[in-house]
């Protein structure tokens, strides 16, 4: 989707884009059902599913018991018997008890049955920090799902991508983890083209072009990276390329590698804990594929290896990756 299509499109918040797309897709295909805790009467604790119960009724908009493994497990059963379930896990921090159903079941059903069965399942989950959510309402553990073959993992950073990626996810015949950064719900607004369109998986988005360094990010960090890039570019008279991965699995290796071949410097950003993270993977990839083009070490900006985030604002600020920390690393990288 190029800027032309975006120009003049109506502006929506991130959450509106997701909500409206759910509404459209449920209207378009009666096999779709939404299930999760508080998705019906309450319309979701973030109100993403507001109004769906009223329009589609209790049978297609299911307020489930408080049981994450049961939610994903029964959603898998629904997918195996002709429905297109869209499950919500209320916070990524609470997905752990469903990992057996996600990793051992949903992700492996096609492979283990040698293509006799498949599992068209979308799992929507709010994730990410900076909202004073403390240890259990702030987590970013996407890496463990990227590590798991058979899954797809996407993280829109704009309302337009939120719509396009959700459509693609709902139409995909394999399980997709659709991660919604909760800080973006009302903070991020942008143009969202009318009518149906897909944003294909495995295609990163070049947020802005540049020649002196490449920042690779996803989710809320795309916005922090862009801010850092603007400030540092102004300061240092350089031009910074910013890439939004959008889809973590499959990963758009070509766009990342080509960009770094061009700029020679790479800064990989995630707000998640750093070890075995998406930043580790992208950094390793660049080191393997763009070795001869690197003018500086591939640098990672990640959360420290601390089981945060802490609740108290000063602690949260100390822990959280933001434009300031990205900027500092970017300055060092440019000066290298």
């Amino acid at each position, binding site marked *: 989707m190029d800027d032309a299509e975006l120009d003049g499109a109506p502006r929506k918040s991130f959450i509106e884009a997701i909500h409206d797309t759910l509404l459209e897709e449920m209207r378009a295909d009666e096999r779709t059902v939404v299930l999760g805790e508080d998705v019906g009467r309450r319309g979701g604790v973030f109100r993403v599913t507001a109004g769906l119960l009223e329009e589609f009724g209790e049978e297609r908009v299911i307020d489930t018991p408080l049981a994450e493994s049961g939610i994903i497990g029964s959603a898998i*059963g629904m997918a195996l018997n002709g429905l297109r379930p869209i499950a919500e896990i209320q916070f990524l921090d609470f997905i752990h008890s469903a990992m057996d159903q996600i990793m051992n079941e949903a992700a492996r059903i096609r492979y283990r049955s040698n293509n*006799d069965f498949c599992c068209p399942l979308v799992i929507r989950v709010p994730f990410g920090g900076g909202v004073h959510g403390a240890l259990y309402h702030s987590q970013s553990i996407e890496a463990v799902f990227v590590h798991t073959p058979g899954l*797809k993992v996407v993280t829109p950073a704009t309302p337009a991508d939120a719509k396009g990626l959700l459509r693609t996810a709902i139409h995909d015949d394999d399980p997709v983890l659709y991660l919604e950064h909760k800080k973006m719900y009302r903070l991020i607004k942008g143009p969202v083209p009318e009518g149906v369109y897909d944003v294909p998986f495995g295609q990163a988005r070049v947020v802005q072009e540049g020649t002196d360094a490449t920042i690779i990010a996803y989710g809320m960090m795309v916005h922090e990276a862009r801010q850092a890039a603007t400030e540092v570019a102004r300061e240092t008279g350089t031009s910074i390329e910013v890439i939004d991965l959008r889809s973590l699995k499959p990963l758009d290796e070509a766009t990342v590698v080509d960009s770094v071949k061009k700029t020679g410097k790479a800064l990989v950003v995630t707000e998640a804990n750093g070890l075995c993270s998406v930043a580790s993977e992208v950094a390793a990839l660049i080191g393997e594929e763009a070795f001869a083009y690197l003018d500086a070490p591939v640098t990672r900006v990640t959360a420290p290896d601390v089981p945060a985030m802490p609740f108290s604002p000063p602690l949260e600020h100390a822990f959280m990756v933001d434009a300031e920390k990205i900027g500092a690393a970017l300055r060092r990288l440019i000066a290298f």
Partner: protein
Amino acid sequence: MATEVTRVPDEAVKRAFEAGAVSRNGAISVHMPLDHVDVGAGTITAAVTPPSMGDVGLSHATLRELYSFVALARALDERMWQLNRAGRAPFVVSGQGHEAAQVGAAFALDRSKDVVLPYYRDLALSLVFGLTARDVMMSALARAADPASGARQMPAHYGSAKLRIITSSSPVSTQIPHATGVAYAAKLRGTGQVSLTCFGEGGASKGDFHEACNFAGVHKLPVIFFCENNRYAISVPLERQMAIDNVADRAAGYGFPGVIVDGTDLLAVYQVVKAAADRARRGDGPTLVEAKVYRFHPHTSDDDDRAYRSPDEVKAWRARDPLALFEARLREVGALDDESLAEIRTRITGEVDAATEAAEQAPFPDPVTFDRHVYAER
């Protein structure tokens, strides 16, 4: 269930069946068919001894068909052990002792549309749903023609979209919530399907059992939770697995009936599951059926059961071999005689030999295919 007990000398077995008859939270005893009984939440002990053929209402031909399934499952199981000892089959999971319960349950369903979600002991159940001896041997010998997985999974991980046997995995009890979801889809889509999922008493200790039963109860879904209680989870005995005698007693906590049935009595299981399926189709919701069975062999070909149970105990249970019991019954009612029996046996031996031969000739999967079908291929 006195008449049962008199047929069994061993004390342990006696106690097991008494436990079935009187459940700690006040089980009541009723006679089949279940749907003549008002079944609220609570535990029912299905005592059908001796079975009244009138109630069951199956022709002699059908009874012979049922017998053939039990006998075929037994013959395949024994053949796999032979191949394993001969070093030709890498791994065996045995269902010997469970066959009557499985055949009775599967046969009570509508094989033209119902859905089963088996676990690794459910060879006999899968045969009733259309799996062939050839299919079984292909997977036992890890050949490309294994219909469940193309030899990607271990043997005994049954599955076939065409036969409505849902692909199964190894983690215990993950299939139980799938059964709930399958039933939810059936209800929403109005397909009239019933789903039945099987698991052991050990599997009933997993959180997934609880979450799946609870969700199914809330929505009165057409699902049957079928527990094959063989008193051991590998080496862990019943009294270390749970503080109650009957898994069925948990049904009351989910708002649907739990039924305890003698799993060595094929017709009793058939009637109980039939009643549960009718109930499900009527929209009255789930039933938890607990079949009391025993596993004659070690857990798998990698296990040695002498570490945790006595040969005498095994011997006592073998006196209740469901194959022998069913044969005796069918002779009683005149559905089987030496001639028909010899004929069935010859046919089965032929099938098993042919299947074994076919599998041993069959190619292994092509290594280059190892990374296919991780995702849909476009």
